[in-house]
């Protein structure tokens, strides 16, 4: 009997070694990741109490619908491509579901697509302003990340907290962004423009939403989508455009 127990124990150790050996070899080969994010929480600028009954009911549906909004990041150490999953094409354009998904997506206020080249410290993003799509190429954002002591588990990974700041030229506001990154995945990518930490960003806490990782898939190979940047404007041109558009809008609202 004792022999059986000790035999079983040895077998367990061998199986554990094979298991860990397999996974460590998989991760050592891992050069790419496909990361799926979702909107885990939305934050209203005002209050649901200020809405009428129809508005309150509708808002509750929007909050539930937010969980269906997914974003996909494909990344290596050198490049990344981020975009929202095309959920809108799956539903009827004139359905309430479609309208609620548009509203839910807007809380994160992400760009349509973001392509990053970490080697060259450049990003190309696609932004819709006033119903018009623009392509902008610029240097990566500087968030002046400050790494904090707090940790938490996200999808079973140990994540560390960091805080950064950035100025949003569209709303002309300075924001604090809280990010949780995974040091054991030493890739400086993250959702949308949020990157530059010593590990994959698993969660960002933004002004309008919390966006959290839903799935991390290590891949041995993947093609990271490149974007057409031939018509891209510079950051300076983009800032000038935003300034003009904001001025027009302010003038109209004042009038």
């Amino acid at each position, binding site marked *: 009997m004792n022999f059986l127990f000790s035999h079983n124990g040895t077998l367990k150790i061998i199986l554990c070694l094979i298991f860990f050996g397999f996974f460590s070899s998989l991760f050592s080969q891992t050069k790419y990741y496909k990361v799926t994010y979702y909107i885990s929480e939305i934050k*209203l*600028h*005002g*209050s*649901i109490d*200020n*809405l*009428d009954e*129809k*508005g309150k009911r*509708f*808002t509750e549906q929007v909050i539930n619908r937010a969980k269906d909004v997914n974003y996909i990041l494909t990344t290596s150490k050198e490049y990344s491509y981020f975009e929202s999953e095309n959920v809108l094409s799956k539903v009827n*354009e*004139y359905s*309430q579901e*479609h*309208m609620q998904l*548009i*509203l839910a997506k*807007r*809380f994160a*206020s992400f760009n349509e697509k973001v392509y990053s080249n970490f080697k060259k410290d450049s990003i190309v993003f696609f*932004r*819709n*302003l*006033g*119903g*018009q799509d*623009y392509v902008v190429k610029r240097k990566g954002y500087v968030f002046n990340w400050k790494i904090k002591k707090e940790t938490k588990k996200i999808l079973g990974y140990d994540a560390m907290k960091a805080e950064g700041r950035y100025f949003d030229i*569209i*709303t002309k506001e300075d924001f604090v962004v809280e990010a949780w990154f995974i040091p054991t995945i030493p890739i400086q990518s993250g959702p949308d423009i949020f990157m530059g930490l010593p590990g994959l960003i698993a969660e960002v806490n933004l002004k*309008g939403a919390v966006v959290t990782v839903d799935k991390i898939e290590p891949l041995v190979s993947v093609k990271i989508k490149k974007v057409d940047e031939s*018509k891209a404007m510079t950051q300076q041109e983009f800032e000038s*455009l*935003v300034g*003009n*558009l*904001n001025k*027009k*809008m302010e003038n*109209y*609202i004042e*009038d």
Partner: protein
Amino acid sequence: MKKLYSLTTIHIMLISLNAHTTNYNETVASKLELLAFEPEQSCFSFYHDLFNEYYGGVNIGNVGDFNGLVANCQALFE
């Protein structure tokens, strides 16, 4: 009421300003179609209230969605 009328025309203004980057005539025509509604209609005020509570109002970053949503809402309910 004046404010509501102003908001409906914002998008037209933005399109005019942006026209140098795209096919001007085609864009303006399609956006004018989207804006072909009466400002006092309920879809407009419904979404206007939502945008205020959700995002702090209509701005250049969300005005495209705002117009699209109002137009779709009208197609459904008005």
